[in-house]
């Protein structure tokens, strides 16, 4: 097991290195000169200002020196300074990350708590009207744009329950009740697609296991259907579901931006959006680097969890 984790970690190293190179190169891939673009709106600019900005962005050094400086500072937690607020990028991200992470965790929890039971129910009752209804709902859930659902929720709340004011975001530890009241509607809207994905996947996974020979054997030896389902079917069927849910954990973290925009939540997604609008390149690079790294690490955790749960599979 330890060996497996070490091997996977070693495999990650080149990927993370590649990620860092791509993120670093972002500012160099901009068509034209980044400094020109940044300075573009200023009518009176002096050569000294241009040089200063160039130095601030580190663009006055040879490429490999720039990369090495940038990477070694990033590894020590220094992601540079925002061009608009002059505050350290790492600080700004640290202030916004908890909200996006909480939204992600709540969304995952909702998707599992709702999607898995529905999927099991659908599989057990397959080819019944209830199953058909759930499958249609699943397709609709997959097709509904989450930001539209979010907008509809805000619209209906404002039209029919104007007294309910969602209120401002407060950190969970400050006021858990208030925090959950603010965060639950966005999490519900955000989870619509994932509930459908988890449900569909659980359904087909359970169906597949139900057709396996060991399940026939279990039934043949006279076990009660509930025991067959609980002990033989679900244990095997839910293992792949872990992978799917885990895969989307990282995915969601990068996708909170639209939901944050609709519910006006001060999370990392909106930070990224503002940074793009203001061409705050160090901030964009910092956010992309942090989220991509988290994404890779979450996927590693999921792989390890999968290997723990399923001893048959070891990728050597």
């Amino acid at each position, binding site marked *: 097991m330890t060996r497996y984790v070490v091997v996977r970690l070693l495999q990650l190293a*080149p*990927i*993370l290195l*590649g*990620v860092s190179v*791509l993120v670093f190169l*972002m500012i160099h*891939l*901009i*068509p034209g000169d980044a400094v020109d673009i940044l300075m573009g709106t200023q009518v009176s600019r002096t050569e000294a200002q241009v040089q200063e900005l160039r130095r601030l962005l580190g663009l006055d050094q040879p490429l490999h020196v720039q990369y090495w400086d940038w990477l070694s500072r990033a590894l020590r937690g220094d992601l540079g300074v925002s061009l608009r607020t002059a505050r350290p990028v790492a600080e700004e991200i640290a202030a916004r990350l908890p909200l996006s992470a909480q939204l992600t965790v709540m969304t995952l929890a909702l998707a599992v708590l709702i999607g898995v039971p529905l999927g099991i129910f659908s599989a057990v009752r*397959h*080819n019944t009207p209830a199953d058909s209804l759930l499958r249609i709902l699943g*397709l*609709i859930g*997959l*097709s*509904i*744009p989450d*930001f*539209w*659902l979010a*907008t*509809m929720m*805000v*619209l209906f709340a*404002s*039209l029919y329950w104007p007294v309910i004011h969602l209120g401002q975001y407060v950190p969970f530890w400050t006021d858990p009740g208030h925090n959950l009241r603010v965060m639950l509607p966005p999490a519900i809207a955000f989870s619509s697609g994932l509930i459908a994905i988890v449900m569909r996947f659980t359904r*087909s996974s359970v*169906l*597949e296991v*139900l*057709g396996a020979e060991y399940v026939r054997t279990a039934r043949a030896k006279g076990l009660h259907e509930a025991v067959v389902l609980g002990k033989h079917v679900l244990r095997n069927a839910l293992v792949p579901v872990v992978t799917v849910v885990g895969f989307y954990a*990282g*995915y*969601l*973290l*990068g*996708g909170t*931006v*639209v939901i944050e*925009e*609709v519910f006006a939540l001060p999370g990392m997604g909106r930070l*990224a*959006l503002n*940074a*793009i609008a203001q*061409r705050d*390149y160090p901030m*964009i690079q910092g*956010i*992309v680097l942090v*989220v*991509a790294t988290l*994404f*890779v690490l979450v996927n590693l955790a999921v792989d390890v969890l999968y290997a723990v749960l399923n001893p048959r599979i070891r990728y050597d």
Partner: protein
Amino acid sequence: MTNATSPSTASSKSSGAGREHRPAHDPTPQQERAGQGTRWVSLLRKNQMALVGALIVVAYCLMALLAPVLAPYDPVEMDFLAILQPPDRTHLLGTDEFGRDVLSRLLYGARSTVAVAFGAVLLAIAVGVPIGVAAGFVGQRTDTVLMRSMDVLMAFPALLLALAVIAILGQSTINIVIAIGVVYIPQFARVARAAVLSVKHLEFVEAGRAVGLSAGTLVLRHIVPNIWGAVIVQGSISLSLAVLYESALTFLGMGTQPPMPSWGLMLSDGRRFMQLAPWTVVSPGVAIMGLVLGFNLLGDGLRDILDPRLRGAVGNQSFSSK
């Protein structure tokens, strides 16, 4: 595509590769003689889900193409005497805050979405499939280098990668095509590679090699025709997500710029007045959902058709038949 009459084995996994030539049902001699196109049509007819999906998609494409004919008004023409009109006979879906006809804007908005979705997926196929084929066919170092670079691209969550590409290239419709296309390149590379690996060692390829066909001929005439099934399934799944990404990105103001209409932008603009005029935010969302649903139905149906292994689990037949 006529000479790839390979008997595919059941060993190919997960990608549905090499199954293109295995009929979904016992073929009549007539079907056996029928061309590839007829085969597709008859398969579509047998899978109603895919058929409904295909019809929805075709309807949207027609909407986009025929927008100038169908639209009752100019989509950007403002009419300050008809601001925020509820749906009625003159404006079937109402008007927005500039008095522009919502129906006309929806019809024209379909152009941006449909074009971006197809453009992005075609771009991803054009770049990703050759990478995957090269990786799978050549193998060894080439495979490692190509697929590890794809892993790096896949290390970015999709929407964030698209936003990063737009942050670099700037905000425009073309750049949205590139941004979404880049997101999908690794997925097509993976699907194509897996499909190539599953047919690479089959007898007909070995036979081609044995009679001295060049690598290029082997790939183009014997391998590529056998991986299209997998690529098409992946394509239809990607199209549904591409529509969602396009509308999310235009919603965030990253794509189509005003005053030209796009569904995401209409939804975003409508939010300011939605308590007064809910119709401005309801119809764009329904339009997006319909098209995504069409692609999803088509994708599900095509997967059932092209990957019979899953049919027991997903389709209507008994799962115990395997």
